[in-house]
């Protein structure tokens, strides 16, 4: 049976830049698949721009769960204005960039639980080993000023499960006819937000594919008619839907 690496990434605040915004920096509520790839690369100490094929291609599989419900605030940040490369030392004056910052609804830390497996088993073993030791490069929640910490939960096996409710965010491609469920089994309302996110990168960091991904705003499970079975990790009690089409 497939084994899955599970870790949590936590920090006081986050910013996951939306790729289609220009002057204002708006943020997703959770890391995109490409961001998760960057976090895995940082753990292994892979240099910038070196890992897109390995970590955003078909062999890499990701799922993410929001352990803490999130909220957003706006802050305007003074950056160095660089219309031309000559101005990187601040000589072009400052520029004010409205920036959306993600904060936890309760408590002081955001927590995201990440599930990962790779078709190359030796690569997967190497990652588990490094997670146990600690990341090589420091990890962030989207930006270097949102430092984060990784807690390695372990490597888990699981079983396929036909279900309508999963703990993770859901790629809309995994829904039959894009059909979400809007109430829980107990009749409570479910509310979703959809984020259009980068899914994979070309080797020059340009976007190769995007995906529409939904999460439940109140921290509940996402309900829907899925076209693939979910993956149940018994010892954690987590029901996981990986983002990639085709299922685990």
């Amino acid at each position, binding site marked *: 049976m497939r084994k899955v690496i599970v870790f949590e990434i936590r*920090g006081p605040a986050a910013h996951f830049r939306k790729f289609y915004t220009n002057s204002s920096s708006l943020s997703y509520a959770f890391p995109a698949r490409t961001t998760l790839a960057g976090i895995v690369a940082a753990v292994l*100490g892979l240099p910038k721009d070196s890992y897109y094929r390995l970590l955003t291609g078909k062999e890499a599989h990701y799922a993410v769960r929001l352990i803490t419900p999130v909220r957003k605030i706006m802050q305007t940040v003074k950056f160095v204005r660089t219309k031309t490369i000559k*101005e*990187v*030392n601040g000589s*072009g004056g400052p520029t004010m960039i409205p920036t959306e910052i993600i904060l936890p609804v309760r408590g002081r830390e955001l927590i995201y639980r990440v599930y990962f497996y790779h078709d190359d088993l030796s690569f997967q073993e190497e990652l588990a080993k490094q997670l146990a030791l600690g990341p*090589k490069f420091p990890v962030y929640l989207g930006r270097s000023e949102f430092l984060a910490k990784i807690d390695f939960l372990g490597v888990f096996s699981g079983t396929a499960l036909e279900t309508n409710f999963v703990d993770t965010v859901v790629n809309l491609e995994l829904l039959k006819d894009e059909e979400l469920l809007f109430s829980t089994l107990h009749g409570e309302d479910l509310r979703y937000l959809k984020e259009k996110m980068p899914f994979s990168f070309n080797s020059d960091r340009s976007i190769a594919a995007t995906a529409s991904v939904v999460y439940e705003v109140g921290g509940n499970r996402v309900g829907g008619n899925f076209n693939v079975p979910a993956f149940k990790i018994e010892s954690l009690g987590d029901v996981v839907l990986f983002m990639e089409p085709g299922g685990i």
Partner: protein
Amino acid sequence: MGELIKTNSEILFLYDAKLTNPNGDPDDENRPRMDYETKTNLVSDVRLKRYVRDYLQEKGHEIFVAKVEGETVNATERLEKLLGKTSKNISKDDVPVLLEKLVDVRLFGATMPIKSEDGGSSLTFTGPVQFNWGYSLNKVELVESNTITSRFSSTSGNEQGTMGKDYRLYYSLIAFHGIVAAHRAKFTMLDDETLALLDEALVKAIPLFATRSKIGQYPRLYLRVEYGDDMTYLGDFRSFLEVNPKEGLRDITDYSLEAGKLVDLLAENSPKISKILLYFDPNLKTAYHGEAKNFAQLLAEKLGDSKVSILNY
């Protein structure tokens, strides 16, 4: 240059702000940055780095992201001046010389207009030293009365001055968390002497750069925990701190900082810690699980005298 940094560090830095504006939001009439839902005062990482850069520049160090002698020089000209050659002749081979000269790039990284091998027009260095945004450990209230008068008039010939806005908060105990990443140190040649300058700058810079809106800020506690290896990070130390009481504070004498959990965390991980550099203002009342205790004595007690070195400037 000293020795290249080979082990990680984590930083906790507390300073307080009384009747002042630690960091205004330019799009919010320059009001102090606030997360109003939790009454938390925020300070950006760039504000903190600016104090460090200004301090180091004042001390005569070369800074990349700075005005030079009040004159604005663009980045290309700046590199030309530093290296004494024309930009056409500047290449990747000059990077070690530049890093040796530019203290802020060794610490915080930078993007520089130097042609890279893949044909790009710039080289980016990620800094080994990074800070989270700072936040207040207490709940912060803004001063209600905000209007000031100025002797400057809006048009010449006017007899009256103008009215302006000046937003301040009553009291904020601001906490920053930062890291020093050993794996990044080799890319910017961060050495132990430069890191010692960072310690000094953080402790000394804030009271020195007291402009009208920044007066009333003092460093209260600085902790750089140096680990024995290049993999350890214990995480954000601020999560282990509480102030009691948390609301209605007006002054440093109004509360005590509960540091029991943090001290326990450091004591438990003592084998991973090679040393702790500490600056502590005894005016900051601290407690260990409810019992009043001087923080410096407490650390020495729990981790051993030999591990704690006090920063005296």
